[in-house]
């Protein structure tokens, strides 16, 4: 366990064996937050508490959870809580661990959220690949019903809630919340126009809160222990703890729960045991494939929402991928482009065509046939995508390419050195397209 955290707030299973078992969970104060809320708090108090604690969305956008909940209209029924468990960003594997190892924490968080906004139905939308992850989760749901924490008239409070699991079928875009809603309704998982926002017209056109697994799992601690206890962790504007999924060229990849504001260096060196073979960090992708890449000199940046933006990147979902000096920067960028090309949903042309062209040009360069003109072309393509895509997925493509060009231009130029400029510009690429 990391030195800076004496008690895990979310990864309780790392402190207490068998916490996926409901009796063990209850012994560790499990469902006490729900009991407290139902007995002593009005729904609006729960929302206000989460707001004041400063819990921000852990799925990537960092939007304050309590504020999101307060957008839900009071007088329209039914309302829904939809849990985004479509964990698909390359480098992200934290929600899976929560659902497999500490599932009741998530269920309790959902119940608190549902109580706060007045919802009586909730769906957990998991990616199709989570078939086996949903087994312990379903078990936990069944046990929670048996103990009266879910179902009709929970603990005699008059509040009722059903939680149901729904599996997607393999589409990264369904992590975008309106695409997720379409998918849950049985449509292709393409994003919707906004407005209307899901808070007003979400699932089945009813008011809907959509939160990430980790976000909701942070709620019980706040309700049980109060705002001050929560704010002991993290920074003033980024309170609490966050789970970082550390992957790539480190000795001990894995999930680490740390207070927000912890230096990146601590995550990489203390938690991750440093870089393999003692090599230098060459690049850091702090939020998965969608990252603005940071150079190895940025290791002293603090892992909170504000500091990461100041350092030219973002905290996102906290999926920290480490590149070391043995890795070619162009190849790494191409791998991410392959991913985005594969996952572009095809709805809007800037993303559909942009990712196609990026993949073609990157392949040409990495295969050793690229020219300087092709390198310039990469910049042109992202320039045409930026600000023009229908949803965030397309926009996610831009920063990685831009920062890769900025940091590793030497390698790009080395790869194309000696290749002639095409006399008829891009003719070979046009061939690949038609």
């Amino acid at each position, binding site marked *: 366990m990391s030195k800076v955290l004496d008690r895990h707030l979310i990864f309780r299973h790392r402190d207490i064996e068998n916490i996926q078992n409901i009796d063990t969970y209850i012994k560790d104060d499990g469902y006490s937050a729900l009991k407290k809320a139902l007995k002593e708090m009005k729904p609006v108090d729960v929302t206000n508490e989460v707001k004041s604690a400063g819990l921000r969305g852990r799925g990537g956008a960092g939007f304050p959870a309590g504020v999101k909940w307060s957008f839900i209209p009071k007088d329209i029924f039914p309302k829904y809580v939809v849990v985004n468990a479509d964990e*698909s960003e390359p480098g992200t594997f934290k929600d899976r661990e929560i659902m497999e190892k500490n599932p009741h924490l998530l269920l309790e968080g959902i119940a608190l959220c549902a109580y706060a906004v007045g919802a009586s139905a909730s769906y957990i939308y998991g990616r199709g*690949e989570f078939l086996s992850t949903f087994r312990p989760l379903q078990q936990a749901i069944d046990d929670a019903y048996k103990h009266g924490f879910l179902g009709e008239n929970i603990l005699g409070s008059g509040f009722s809630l059903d939680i149901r699991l729904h599996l997607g*079928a*393999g*589409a*990264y875009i369904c992590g975008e919340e309106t695409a997720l809603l379409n998918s849950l309704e049985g449509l292709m998982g393409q994003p919707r126009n906004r407005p209307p926002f899901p808070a007003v017209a979400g699932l089945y056109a009813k008011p809907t809160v959509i939160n990430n697994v980790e976000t909701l799992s942070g709620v019980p601690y706040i309700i049980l222990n109060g705002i001050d206890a929560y704010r002991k962790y993290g920074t003033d504007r980024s309170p609490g703890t966050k789970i970082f999924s550390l*992957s790539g060229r480190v000795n001990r990849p894995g999930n680490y729960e740390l207070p927000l504001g912890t230096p990146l260096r601590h995550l990489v060196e203390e938690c991750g045991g440093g870089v393999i073979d003692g090599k230098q960090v060459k690049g850091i992708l702090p939020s998965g494939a969608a990252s603005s890449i940071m150079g190895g000199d940025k290791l002293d940046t603090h892992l909170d929402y504000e500091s990461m933006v100041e350092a030219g990147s973002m905290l996102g979902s906290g999926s920290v991928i480490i590149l070391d000096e043995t890795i070619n920067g162009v190849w790494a960028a191409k791998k991410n482009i392959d991913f985005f090309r594969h996952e572009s949903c095809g709805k809007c042309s800037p993303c559909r065509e942009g990712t196609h062209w990026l993949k073609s040009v990157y392949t040409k360069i990495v295969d050793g046939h690229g020219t300087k003109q092709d390198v310039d072309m990469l910049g042109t393509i992202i320039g045409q995508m930026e600000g023009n895509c229908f949803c965030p997925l397309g926009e996610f493509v831009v920063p990685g390419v831009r920062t890769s060009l900025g940091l590793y231009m030497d390698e790009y130029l080395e790869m194309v050195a000696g290749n002639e400029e095409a006399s008829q510009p891009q003719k070979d690429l046009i061939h690949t397209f038609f």
Partner: protein
Amino acid sequence: MWSEKERQELDKILEKYPPDRKMSAVLPALYVVQRRKNYLTDDDIKDVAEALDVTVTHVHSVIGFYTLFRKEPTGKYMVQVCTDLPCALRGAEDFYHRLCERMEIGSHGGTTDDDLFTVEGVVCIAACDKAPCMQINLEFFESLTDDQIDEVIKRLRQGESLTAVAANY
């Protein structure tokens, strides 16, 4: 045609959604019928469309959109090895190519001659700290050596159940 058992499963699925929102069950229903042959035939698709009061065209569009539905026959076991960036940084691409070669399907995936295994490279499956990792019919196999995966394949070839094998990894 829905078998009695499938029909019961479908009824349980439909209970999850409001009665006038049967279309929500399209993905779960497709999983049920895809189990019949490991891929979807026109009849399977029609079954889903009829049961959920949606058009066959709609079901086709959904199938085309998601990667876990297939309209072509595959091996009995879908072996999906992650070769995305975080795993590739830990040698997953080479691992994948070596596996394909040992299974004699060329180095870029395909189906074995006995139709038991289809091997393919896939994007991130949320196990990036445990590369090389893969799913076999959606069961996770993580932090594998070449020898370990060979052992897994051998046991499946000998007819052991996937759940039994998966429990060891």
